[in-house]
């Protein structure tokens, strides 16, 4: 798995994550008006974060089989 | 009795010239315009000699030659092959299939007549 498909997927996930959690993508969510009654940035960060964890979990647990 | 000669060629003008030459020599002339017709007429008439063109529709001269030579009833039929493709391989192939002689087009009328005469005299 180290250099296999899962490894490459993890590296890809890293770069996607690094992109999402930084400028300029981050600035897209940085609005001052509420989003479904909550701060948009806060909601988006947590949702993206959870999604990323989900994807990584899928990659490694799948590879474990 | 006059010898029978079959002229098998798909080029009308060549047939006309051969027919004229052979008749002038006093032979009885039969004509076929393609390979199949040639085989039929050879079977039916058993000519003494066939002037056989190689490039003919339906059946090539080689095929006709092979069929004739493999038929014991037609052992007496001489075959003189005429071809416009002057390659050595074609000459060799014709002879290998049992053709008795081979001439390339365009031929000299004198030589052709001589060759026909000598082939028929062998019998």
């Amino acid at each position, binding site marked *: 798995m180290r250099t296999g498909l899962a*490894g490459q997927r993890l590296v890809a996930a890293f770069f996607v994550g690094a992109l999402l959690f*930084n400028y*300029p993508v*981050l600035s897209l969510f940085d609005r001052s008006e509420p989003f479904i009654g909550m701060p948009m940035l*806060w909601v988006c960060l947590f949702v993206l974060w959870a999604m990323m964890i989900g994807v990584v979990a899928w990659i490694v647990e799948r590879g474990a089989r | 009795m006059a010898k029978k000669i079959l002229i098998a060629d798909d080029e009308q*003008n060549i047939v006309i010239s051969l027919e004229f030459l052979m008749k002038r020599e006093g032979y009885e002339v039969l004509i076929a315009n393609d390979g199949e017709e040639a085989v039929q007429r050879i079977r039916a008439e058993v000519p003494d000699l066939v002037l056989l063109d190689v490039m003919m529709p339906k059946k090539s001269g080689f095929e006709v030659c092979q069929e004739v030579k493999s038929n014991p009833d037609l052992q007496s039929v001489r075959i003189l092959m005429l071809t*416009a493709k002057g390659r050595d391989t074609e000459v060799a192939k014709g002879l290998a299939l049992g053709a008795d002689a081979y001439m390339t087009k*365009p*031929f000299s009328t*004198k030589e052709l007549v001589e060759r026909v005469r000598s082939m028929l005299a062998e019998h």
Partner: protein
Amino acid sequence: MLSGTVVVAVSFAYLLVLFAVAYFGDRRAEQGRSIIANSWTYALSMAVYCTAWTYFGSVGRAASGGVWFLPIYLGPTLAMTLSWLVLLKMIRIAKTYRITSIADFIASRYGKSHLLGGLVTIIAVVGMIPYIALQLKAISSGYTVLTGQHDSGFFPFAGSSWVNDGTLYVALTLAVFTVLFGARHLDATERHEGMVAAIAFESVVKLLAFLVIGVFVTYVVFDGFGDIFARAFADPELAGLLSLKTASSAGYGGWFAMTLLALLSVIFLPRQFQVTVVENVNEQHLRRATWLFPAYLLLINIFVLPIALGGLLYFGRGTVDPDTFVLSLPLAHGEGMLALLAFVGGLSAATGMVIVETIAVSTMVCNDLVMPLLLRTERFKRSEHPDLTGLLLGIRRGAILGVLLLGYLYFRLAGEAYALVSIGLISFAAVAQFAPAMLGGMYWRGGTREGALAGLLAGFVVWAYTLMLPSVAKSGWLDRDFLDHGLFGLGFLRPEQLFGLAGLDSISHALFWSLAANIASYVLVSLARVPTGQEASQATLFVDVFRRGQDAPATFWRGSAQVQDLLPLVARFLGAERARRIFQTYALERGLGGIEQLKPDPGLVQFAETQLAGAIGGASARVMVSSVVQEEPLGLDEVMDILDEASQVRAYSHQLEEKSQALEAATAELRAANERLKELDRLKDDFMSSVTHELRTPLTSIRAFSEMLFDDPKIDLKDRTRFLGIIVSETERLTRLVNQVLDMAKIESGHAEWHNTDIDMRELVEQAVETTAQLFRDRGAVVELDLPDEALHLRADHDRLVQVMLNLLSNAAKFVPTAGGWARISLSRETGQIRVDVSDNGPGIPSDELGVIFEKFRQGGDEHSRPQGTGLGLPISRQIVEHFGGRLWVRSTVGQGSTFTFVLPVPPENAETVQSTQ
């Protein structure tokens, strides 16, 4: 408010529970039934990352900077994504070479250097002291909040005498517990199963406690997330916290720096290295931790912002320290027990961190700082102390106490000036300095001892100058003057605007300069010289750890020692009984009867050294072993020879492989080229043969008739005329053939001349039909013309298109039946093109001949109707049509006739004008 006694009693009770868990874990480990040998425990133990800083400090951070607490957790999430690449290699290296700390790792990698190990240890100690101070501060201020400021007995704030300072007792208590957890006995592998079990337990406690407080604040004090956020939006000051731009002046650059810092910290913090690498039981456990640990981080952070906003909404700004909202909010609502639970959670977080961090740092201090110094004394080398295990334990325990006391000292000196988060970031920036030497050492062979030294030193100095010293100065223990005006009054040396670099927050600023200095020094100094033999061999062992396999550490030196020499040496540090046991196992594994049969080979020496390395560090083990081994140290040349031999064989076989592949490829290419040539040759032969045949056939007739006329002057007039007629027509045929062959050759080779003019297609068709009218009349056939009303203009070569039309028309004329024959020519315009159809009611073309008729010298139809053709008309026509970008094709049904169609494109603007004129 709670009474101090209750709080202290509960705290001690909790610590005892933790110890019970650890004791149970150790017992089970001794029985071989480990309770930590699963991926869940492993991932939970990583959560030691979440300290009191997370527990209290994140809320404080959120109260002043909104979402700015998050990068500290997003960084680790990103780092863990790469764990299967980076951490796995680190774990493999550490396990294979018995590495027990970061200092040991770096020292071993760069040629088992004592100096490097010492430097890393010093950086770690200096870097971690503020962090430990942070935990002490958290516990002490938590205690203060719980009990009220002026409870008797403990009075935690500076200013009172040290003896009365509760924080000192907190530090001492933690020291005792840490010794109990981590330095009760000596273990060659430096693994502490009980401690890991306790940490995993502690992680669950702090998470649950924090979630309970979060739910309490969000759903009991307020009416859910929506309520808190709605109120926050209503308050203009709080609304500013909800956006990244308005919440902090650091900007996106600062955000990135913070993420990077956290990303590096989760790998290089000594305690993270301890739980992730040293305490790892099974490499496969890393797999689950890759997502479970980030998921833990996400969970513990969900309520941070709501609690912070809730606290600010409830207390207002500036009345209560936001760092203690977790405690003060329940207290303010009369929920004393809840506040106590929150305190236990915080205590848990702080204790876990202190225990693991001090154990990790004390291992470094012992193995990489104290031992090397002791080993330098000659007296020590001569085995005057038969058993040193006691000494080793003593050193470690002393180190634990020392580190905690230093933490306390920092707390006394600087702790009050800073919020929790700021202190933590200073430590993070310190451990980030390990990254270049560690990562470089794992992936780059070229790094040298001097390079690593220079990098670490440069990074450390810059860190101290730009971050550590300002923190001390701001606490009032140093003259602030150098902060504002630079060292020696030199403006460009201002620590927080080094070389005039302004616009960054202090952390980003320090991180940038320190890492820049670090990496630059590491790389440049490393490149200054070729690695020595020792460095090169270690580099290979580290970089290629996956290639070598776990149980075959290569030996890069010659030397031998009798087992009688080695055994006592190992016994000195591990204890006599344990040493015997280990050697016995080693002998049995090799199929030998007992220790006495062990041969004095390099493998044995290597084994002994590895065992020692676990206890006293790689560098010290090297020194100790070499004192008893008759060693011939290998020079660089010899090591390089050994390395070269292997790498040359590898390179050579690689080259061979490459060459044979290249050869195969070349062969295949040649074969393909040859096939192409053969094919071309065959085509050319076929063409020549066809041309020969086509030329000889008319020549045959011409020669035959000419000779006959020449030889026989008596041929009658009728025959003579007929023969001459044949000669003339065959000559014409020959001429036509030669012209068409040349034409074809010209078009194919691209040398044909095209005279494009504006032509009217209608006129052209009419003209062609007129030209061929006689042919159709001869056959008794009817020609129908279907032409549009207006002219169809197009730019093309007039004569060439006439040639195409004539060809198609003469073909039609040739094939129509002699009775009732007809041909229909239609011209029409379609979108973007002009279409011409030439239909006839001839015999039609069998479907298998449809493609063939466009090939050269391939004529369709019955032989009787053929003699006119050369077999080149259609191929030439198709070439012409295609030259103008059109297509020529045929549709035919046998017995019903054929339709030849060609289309020619016309430019769209032309089409428009045609349409508009309509």
